[in-house]
């Protein structure tokens, strides 16, 4: 197990360098000069443009910029933004906790409600509960997330007045509740469906028959035997979803004016803030890598047959 973890950690290094380099190049290939764009559609001042490019090191060849950037990164320096010359680290440390809170709320929601619905539907396959869950998840998956978000905003915010239409304070848990529900909705549907299929399949397995024949209590059969074996695909999904929830919340964060990572990334892209984009993606890559490592480790816990030397 220890060697497995070490190997996985070592694998992270090339993945990390590869992704940052790729993003770095991609940002540079995008049309539009971030320094020039500070002037909007008004004619820029060439002297100032040159000055800013020089100050931010943007006049160096790309490979030098990358080396500089990586060098800084190793010392925890994410560079500065082009507009405003603020440390990128400030922007990141401001946005990540917000997204982390939002994502973890959405994730918990996915986990608890999704698995419960899946188990219910899987055990009563073909019955009323199963059909209801199937219909509900189909609806959630097929309706785009921004429609759900806007409907929630208009209905609960503008019509009923239960919530404020946008989040007034991105740090408040209660304010983040509705966006988190919206954000976790699609994942919930997938989790429910995955669990349902898996449970329905495993219910026919030999060990289940054995367990029933042994006369074990129903509760124990479901949680210890059925659920544990059925969770492997669900855990895989939930693991990768952590990363998706963190970075993929662009739409939800936009609708509810939550100043998280999705929003930061979107704004940075619109302003061609290379350092911010690379910085955010770097952290997201780390989150992904950590989550997938965790998933792999969980496999072994869930199913002792899966062992790593």
């Amino acid at each position, binding site marked *: 197990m220890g060697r497995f973890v070490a190997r996985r950690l070592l694998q992270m290094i090339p993945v990390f360098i590869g992704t940052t380099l790729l993003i770095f190049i991609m940002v540079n290939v995008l049309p539009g000069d971030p320094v020039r764009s500070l002037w909007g559609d008004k004619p820029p001042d060439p*002297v100032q443009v040159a000055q800013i490019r020089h100050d931010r090191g943007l006049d160096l060849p790309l490979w030098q910029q990358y080396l500089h950037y990586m060098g800084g990164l190793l010392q925890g320096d994410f560079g500065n933004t082009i507009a405003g010359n603020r440390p990128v680290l400030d922007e990141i440390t401001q946005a990540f906790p917000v997204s982390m809170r939002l994502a973890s709320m959405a994730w918990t929601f996915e986990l608890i409600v999704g698995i419960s619905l899946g188990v219910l539907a899987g055990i009563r396959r073909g019955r009323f509960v199963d059909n209801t869950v199937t219909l509900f998840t189909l609806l959630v998956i097929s309706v785009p997330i921004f429609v759900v978000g806007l409907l929630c905003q208009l209905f609960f915010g503008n019509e009923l007045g239960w919530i404020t239409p*946008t989040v007034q304070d991105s740090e408040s848990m209660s304010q983040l509740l509705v966006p988190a529900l919206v954000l976790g909705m699609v994942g919930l549907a997938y989790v429910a469906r995955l669990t349902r299929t898996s449970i329905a399949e495993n219910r026919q397995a030999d060990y289940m028959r054995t367990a029933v024949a042994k006369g074990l209590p129903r509760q124990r059969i479901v949680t210890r035997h059925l659920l544990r074996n059925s969770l492997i695909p669900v855990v895989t999904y939930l693991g990768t979803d952590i990363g998706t929830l963190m970075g993929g919340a662009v739409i939800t964060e936009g609708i509810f004016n939550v100043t998280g990572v999705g929003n930061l990334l979107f704004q940075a892209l619109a302003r061609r803030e290379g350092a911010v984009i690379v910085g955010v993606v770097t952290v997201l890559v780390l989150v992904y890598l950590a989550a997938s490592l965790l998933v792999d480790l969980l496999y072994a816990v869930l199913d002792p047959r899966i062992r790593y030397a």
Partner: protein
Amino acid sequence: MRGAKSAKWVAIAGVVALTATACGGGDSDNKGSGKVDPKGIVSYANGEPQNPLQPSNTMEAYGSVVIDSLFTGLVYYDKQGDITYENAESVTPDKANKVWTVKLKPGWKFHNGEAVTAKSYVDAWNWAADPANGQQNSSWYRDIVGYEDVHPAKGKAKKKAMSGLKVVDENTFTITLDHGIPYYEYKLVYKPFFPMPSAALKDPKKYGESPVGNGPYKFKSWEHKKSIQVTAWADYKGADKPKNGGINFKAYTTPQGAYNDLRSNNVDTMPQIPDSELANYKQDFGDRAITSDYSAINTVNPAFYSKTFKDVDVKVIQGLSMAIDRETIVKTTFSGTREPASGWVATGVKGYKAGACGEFCKFNPKKAKQFVKDGGGVPGNKISIQYNADQPHKGWVTAVCNDIQKNTGVKCVGDPKTDFQADTEVRDKRQVKAMYRSGWVLDYPFNGNFLSDLYGTGVDGNKGEFSDKKFDALTKRADAAKTIDESAKLYQEAERELRNSFPGIPLWYNKITSGHSTNVKNMEFDQAGDPVLTDVEVFEK
């Protein structure tokens, strides 16, 4: 002004294309007791400013509105486009309009207690002109003698101060220009001409995070990406004393979010209603809906270097212009929230005159076809209009193209670029295929700002490389005029000349479309599209 740099551009709003129609109603009852609370706080839907809050480094809308609340400049202007004196008692030119003497009203102070003197102005401008200080608006001082020494096109600054700025006494200074400009005081309206206290120049970085101004409001706090708060300043000497206790500039990432908050009274007002709501905002807000004039114009301009328009006969462009049914497009695409343009200068500025474009801006399909035919058409009988797809331009571009195609037989297609950055890059690199969309908001309320700065031969703002010798001669004459009125009149002549050379097709003038919550009254917007926040009154809760 050979490419004077210009005012604010609307910051790239993070528009995630959200299109949904709000269902009507939503008017909540007027909660207030009807009594005004002079200490009430007005909240304004803004966004995160692009740069630190220094007046000479602020040109986009999010920062501009905050700077305007914290600072009062020498002069401003009224609804007629006439100059009003704010911190200046008088601004007087010599006979040649070359040496301008500024006298300050005595007794004004900065929020930190420092006196506002002639030196506060001169030092601030000299500091901002130095490229080492990285101020985006520094080229606004380019008319002043000695600017080249401080801000050379290449290499390091030779001097730290412009020789054209002289402090006479505590409340008087002179500005010497390298050539006479009759309307120079209009330029002084703009932010780089605001004063700064001496502490600002000592520690600009700290200052950018917590600015000290001389305006109606005093800086309180800035929580990045959340809000900026300012409070009414009791010792303010200006005429526009705040009628409320302060402003909370809330940062929004999308206009749609701001709109929904405005509808449910969570924010008191916002700059512009998102386009997707133009059809319903009047219904949503009733008598709290705001529609007012705004000095901004939209055009589509030919790229005169492109294959399509290189050797074009002006008749073709005139014909294309006549093929566009502005009235109908304004009604259908913009729900009547724009006004068809009849010239190249926007309404509400000094020297504006309706009808400069004459019959060429009136819908006339028959003549349109004839003109395009007489002019010999365009190569390939096909044109395109370039626009940025990150803002809602597609609708009207399609409508304009449809009109052109239907009425002249010239094939017309939209040429979308992914976003504004990509769009401006293509324009800067002179790679526009045929035409591009363009918009201009006033820098200062004078018709010359819309003419020589955009269509003069070789100026920075002239992205289509338009050139008309007659027009250049006329603007030169206007710049050499003795008085402002004379200059404005001569500029009108120059504008009329444009109908014979057609640098761009005027489409419509923008209007302010906004609304306010039930918490406030007296919400208005000025000619530059900025909210007049000092006049807003807040109801008691």
